[in-house]
């Protein structure tokens, strides 16, 4: 009975997803009053594109500023890059020079958007005085890293305005995913006069920042709501149907869910099975299900004596029953991960997982039929005796809070049963977690990684020997070579091969990390909402074409 219920729910959600994609192409009539209320989980730090660090800032900036391109969805719901601030672009044969032709667009105060505004914006991000923490995103550009670190000069940075409407980038080396960066907030223009007038407060209040995107910022009541209005000066104003957008900042989950349920907000994200069931039960919602570009994995400290052994790492990874893991800890909000690069992430225009066609963790589980035996073998080789019961592994976790405690205790029990060893849990204050794992003061730790741009490079380059997030200090020559080779070519078929091999080395041959789960996205929108795009990257909540029909 329960199974059939589940099947029914699944079928229902499939149907509504299909209905939704069907609606996208329908000719828009729409309600007379066009407005939308959207739930936002946290307060954006700032709307200054150079100094913002969180996703909520990105969501709003994408709606009020026009980056060179815009991340939209095709009729199958796949991310596609569309011309935005730039109407066209071309890349030189050697892949080093990118030329963007800008379209005629105006700022909300009527001034023309110029190529200089884009140059100024990116140079300000790189300027050490600005202290942006996102300069790394601009590293593919020639001279960018050197300038940001205070070693290079501003004039050597490969971002130039050839004329008012032409923007030219010179890259360090060919970058196959460069276009995937151009819809990111760092590629929006900024107005020098505003930055100079408002100084550090630029972007911290509604009136300190002019807009050139589909909407303008009408008001911003910190930690409460952000109101946007349609930008009449926008180049594509005809496509924008909403006259008002209100982001309600609801940091408390219970309150957020209540507001979705009672209809105060039209779009919001459900984070637990209980709420998903409740929303589906009302019949008032379309559900948008997909994946976040997020992988949760267990990182092993390969400089630790125990986890320097490949056998032990493989045994631990193979011992995890991933289906049971997600079923117990994240019912219907995550799926088991048998690979590292998450579903829906693309290489070129193809989904990486489909193109790669492999699931290395499944191979690992087939190979390691008896994790306990392999574990025992591993400890013998290390000279730690032959009795797993005398071995203690330590899991480091943030907190404890209810969730991290649940996860850590689940893992503790699972490893104790599967490997026959003892497992301790060490809790660290969340704010000093970064330092603890950054300095290598751990054995195993669970961490989530969310990609920055739509290319496997965003996933794989963190595990290179010099990767800043490679907390396990794992190092593999072949892996490093492959990543370098994949950076240097634009041939997507070759890059696919490199990444595929990297993934195999990372989680099968070397088991440097153990993928655990992929995070699913479940956004609920009222049935009358049309044209809303829940993109994987970019805004991730794209409202440019959204409207309501039958509110």
């Amino acid at each position, binding site marked *: 009975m329960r199974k059939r219920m589940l099947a029914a729910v699944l079928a229902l959600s499939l149907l509504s997803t299909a209905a939704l994609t069907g609606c996208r192409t329908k000719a828009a009539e729409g309600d007379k009053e066009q407005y939308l209320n959207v739930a936002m989980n946290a*307060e954006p*730090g*700032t709307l*200054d594109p150079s*100094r*913002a*660090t969180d996703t909520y800032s990105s969501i709003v900036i994408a709606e009020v500023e026009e980056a060179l391109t815009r991340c939209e969805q095709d009729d199958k719901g796949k991310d596609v890059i569309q011309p935005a601030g730039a109407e066209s672009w071309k890349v030189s044969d050697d892949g080093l020079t990118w030329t963007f032709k800008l379209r005629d667009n105006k700022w909300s105060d009527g001034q023309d958007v110029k190529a200089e505004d884009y140059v100024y914006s990116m140079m300000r991000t790189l300027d*050490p*005085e*600005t*202290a*942006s*923490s996102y*300069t*790394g995103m601009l590293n593919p550009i020639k001279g960018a890293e050197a300038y*940001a*670190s*205070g070693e290079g000069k501003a004039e050597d940075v490969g971002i130039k305005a050839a004329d008012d409407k032409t923007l030219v980038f010179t890259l360090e080396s060919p970058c196959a995913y460069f276009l995937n960066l151009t819809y990111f907030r760092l590629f929006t223009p900024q107005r020098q006069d505003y930055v100079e007038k*408002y100084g*550090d*407060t*630029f*972007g*911290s*209040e509604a009136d*300190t920042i002019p807009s050139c995107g589909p909407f303008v910022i009408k008001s911003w*009541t*910190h*930690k*409460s*709501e952000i109101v946007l209005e349609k930008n009449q000066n926008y180049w594509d104003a005809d496509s924008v149907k909403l006259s008002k957008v209100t982001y*309600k*900042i*609801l*940091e*408390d989950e*219970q*309150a957020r869910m*209540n*507001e979705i*349920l*009672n209809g*105060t907000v039209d779009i919001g994200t459900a984070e637990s099975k209980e709420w998903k069931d409740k929303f589906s039960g009302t019949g008032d919602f379309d559900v948008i299900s997909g994946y976040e570009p997020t992988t949760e994995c267990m990182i092993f400290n390969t400089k630790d004596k125990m986890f320097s052994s490949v056998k032990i790492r493989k045994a631990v990874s193979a011992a995890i029953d991933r289906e049971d893991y997600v079923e117990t800890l994240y019912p219907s909000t995550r799926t088991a991960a048998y690979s590292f690069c998450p579903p829906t992430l693309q290489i070129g225009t193809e989904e990486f997982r489909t193109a790669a066609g492999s699931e290395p963790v499944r191979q690992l589980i087939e190979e390691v039929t008896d994790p306990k035996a392999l574990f025992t073998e591993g400890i013998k080789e290390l000279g730690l005796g032959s009795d797993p019961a005398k071995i203690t592994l330590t899991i480091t976790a943030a907190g404890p809070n209810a969730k991290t405690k649940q996860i850590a205790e689940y893992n503790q029990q699972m490893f104790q049963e599967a490997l026959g060893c003892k497992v301790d849990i060490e809790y660290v*204050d*969340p*704010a*000093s*977690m*970064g*330092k603890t794992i*950054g300095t290598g003061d751990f054995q195993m730790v669970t961490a989530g990684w*969310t990609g920055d741009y739509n290319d496997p490079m965003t996933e794989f380059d963190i595990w290179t020997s010099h990767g*800043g*997030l490679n*907390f396990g200090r794992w190092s593999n020559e072949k892996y490093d070579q492959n990543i370098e080779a994949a950076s240097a070519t634009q041939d997507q078929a070759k890059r696919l091969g490199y990444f595929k091999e990297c993934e195999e080395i990372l989680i099968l041959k070397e088991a440097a990390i153990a993928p655990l789960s992929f995070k699913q996205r479940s956004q609920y929108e009222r049935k009358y909402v049309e044209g809303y795009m829940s993109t994987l990257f970019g805004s991730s909540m794209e409202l440019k074409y959204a409207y309501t029909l039958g509110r």
Partner: protein
Amino acid sequence: MLSYMLKRLAYMAVTLWVVITITFFLMHAIPGDPLSGLARELPAHTKANYYAKYGLDKSLGEQYFIYINNLLHGDLGESLKYPGRDVKGEILKYAPATARLGLQAVSIGFLLGSILGLAAAFKRNRWPDYLVTGAALLGVSVPSFVLAALLQYIFAVRNSWLPATGWGGFAFTILPSIALSTSVLAIFARVMRASALDVIGQDYIMTARAKGSGGLSFAFKHVARNAVLPSVTLLGPQIAGIITGSFVIENIFAIPGIGSNFVTSVFNRDYTMIMGMTVFYAVVYMAALLLVDIAYAVIDPRIRLYEPK
């Protein structure tokens, strides 16, 4: 009176300095810094740029003197978590919402609590007494966030009588004020009951009764006025505590106040915001205590704040 006030203000300044100094060094003693909350490990040069911008690369002693110097010039600095937001401006802009909510809650709690406490004292060991003490126990033990969620569900989700979240007019303040006021109400009811019982047992009440006084005016004029003193003592800290905000209530009702800043700034290691909130809280608390002392003298003529010469 003037010299008394000056003396009190001088004490307050010294206390404030001690509080600031202790907080400053304690805050820097906890591990982590504003960048450790970011999900990513930053390159060394990016970190260096950041520390240099906010003066975090200087020695702790130097940072302390810079902070004190800025503070004396009325500058509380820029928030580290929310770039571009001036801490002082942020507090002044969003404190009114928090204060309004707090004052409404304290008013409800104080007035209703005192009346209930008085009623319980007059009907001692009869059903109104049991009802009030029972309700007070419940009010103290049910956490405000449970009550908040319940109120939100009943009044805003099941029935759309009141807005569930947000800030905009009186209607928006009703649910959060009620959620905040229950614990205050419970405390005042208990305190009032105890001190009213004490007063009722006094000789002068017996005298007044013997002379034929009774009824409501008797209860308020003779009993309440004498019994309210302990409640007034409590009122100071209660007001200070509640107008500097409630993290949970503001979060649940999405109220643009400053209550959430106190807790989140510590989690985020937002140094300037932590200091700003500490200064603000300390000033409000001390001012409330001073007001309470003055109120004593008004309510009870036997209390003098200073020795008349």
